[in-house]
């Protein structure tokens, strides 16, 4: 029995990691096409049909390039930093439910790698570690641009982590659990009999602040100060080449996927497709529909990420700090207070 559980878990991990890695390849392609569309360009269209293989070619290029470590860099940390980044980006997915249970070979399998009691806290804890990859990369490169990028990153993450955590508190209060699959279960009901009880509707303020904080935590525009090209060359990864640069690149997009998945799970009803349970599908088909729904929702959120990136300018550093501490933090605290009051009145 014990070995079976281990095997199933390993299988789940393998599937999820491979899916994410494949997704990243296409995500980069989509991002480039969308950016081209926004900027009225053509974008990659030569390698493979519609340029679909462009990213694959890029990956091959990165793999074959020489790994250069600056002479005065701190070698061990320089090597460690990208590993931390990608490890953190991938391990967040462990607690995200990508579907309800599915029946395979006569077994009920939960579509979540680790159904831990403290799911949300796990996500917060792991994402809070992502900053080490960037900071250490910046420090160990022994380059002033890298260091500045690393410093900015740690300051930014500390500032927005608080708002991120506090935005979730509202969701916790509404659903009364820290377990992510229970939070999704809670969102499968309907408000007034017709509106899906997604936390997006129950926690509109929390939703907006969480998405904003998620942008900051993933270092996406308009919060990409750690790698602001015009100011810092490449920011923390200026001194990285080849595979290690590739890992940072991968981590950035993996982070985006994870963030989208977390937003989907916490605020957009997770894998649940409203009203589908009334259609009367067989349980196996229903499970597949749920997984499909989850993927579509995540894809939609990612699309949102991409469009935002190519339409908004970057914040200035002081604007970033002001937004984080003087606007986001009070708003999230007020949200917690309001949620508490409403819950008190309802019960």
């Amino acid at each position, binding site marked *: 029995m014990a070995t079976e559980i281990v095997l199933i878990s390993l299988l789940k991990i393998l599937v999820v990691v491979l899916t994410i890695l494949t997704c990243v390849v296409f995500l980069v392609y989509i991002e480039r096409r969308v950016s081209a569309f926004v900027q009225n360009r053509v974008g990659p269209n030569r390698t493979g049909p519609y340029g679909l293989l462009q990213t694959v070619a890029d990956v091959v290029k990165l793999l074959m390039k020489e790994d250069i470590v600056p002479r005065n860099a701190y070698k061990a*940390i320089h090597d460690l930093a990208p590993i931390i980044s990608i490890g953190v980006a991938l391990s967040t997915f462990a607690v995200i439910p990508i579907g309800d249970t599915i029946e395979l070979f006569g077994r009920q399998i939960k579509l979540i790698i680790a159904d*831990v*009691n*403290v799911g949300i*806290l*796990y996500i*917060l*804890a*792991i994402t*809070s*570690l992502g*900053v*080490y990859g960037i*900071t*250490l990369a*910046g*420090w160990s490169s022994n380059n002033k641009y890298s*260091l500045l990028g*690393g*410093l900015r990153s*740690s*300051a930014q*993450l*500390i500032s927005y*982590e608080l708002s991120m955590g506090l935005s979730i508190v509202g969701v916790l209060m509404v659903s009364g659990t*820290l377990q992510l699959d229970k939070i999704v279960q809670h969102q499968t009901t309907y408000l007034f009999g017709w509106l899906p009880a997604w936390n997006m509707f129950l926690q509109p303020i929390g939703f907006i602040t969480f998405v904003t904080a998620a942008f900051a935590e993933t270092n996406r525009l308009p919060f990409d100060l750690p790698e602001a090209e015009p100011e810092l060359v490449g920011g923390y990864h200026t001194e990285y080449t080849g595979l290690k640069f590739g890992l940072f690149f991968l981590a950035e997009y993996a982070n985006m996927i994870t963030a989208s998945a977390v937003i989907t799970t916490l605020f957009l009803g997770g894998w649940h497709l409203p009203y589908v349970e009334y259609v009367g599908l067989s349980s196996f088909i229903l499970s597949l529909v749920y997984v499909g729904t989850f993927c579509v929702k995540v894809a939609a959120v990612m699309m949102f990420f991409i469009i935002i990136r190519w339409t908004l300018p970057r914040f200035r550093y002081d604007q970033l700090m002001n937004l984080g501490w003087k606007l986001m933090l009070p708003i999230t605290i007020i949200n917690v207070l309001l949620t508490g009051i409403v819950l008190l009145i309802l019960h």
Partner: protein
Amino acid sequence: MNVETIFFYLLGAVFVGSALMMVTRRNPVIAALYLILNFFCLAGIYLTLHAQFIAVIQILVYAGAIMVLFVFVIMLLNLSDERRLSEAISFKKIVAGGLSVALLLELLYIFVYRKTDLPTLNAERSIEIGTVESIGRHLFTKFLFPFEVTSILLLAAIVGAVVLAKRRLD
């Protein structure tokens, strides 16, 4: 020997090892990294004791927030390797070292030979205690007062930090 015991000794070994490395490293950033590793092992030990909540909080607060700030400040100050202190071995140091060794031996003696003195707690109860629900319930009933006092403590600390660090006081 069950899995938990093996994990405990494994984590314990890394825990002590990383603590020693942290104290002996010259480079402050490397020392801080060993401290982070140390916190991870501590979180792991909490997990073997079924204290999920404390384990996650240990990582979230210490490794994820406080140490980030530490590393940030160390980098900002651009501290280089600490030079070796030229202080010779003095009487004070010998006494301090002797006392520390005595304390260590004493504790070892207690935990190896006088284990029976210690109160025992059965494992089933510890699973109950470690959950978020149980901690939350205790925090807002029996320990409500310390919880509130902690907020006063933090408030005082924030006010103090601002008073000392603010550039202009007008």
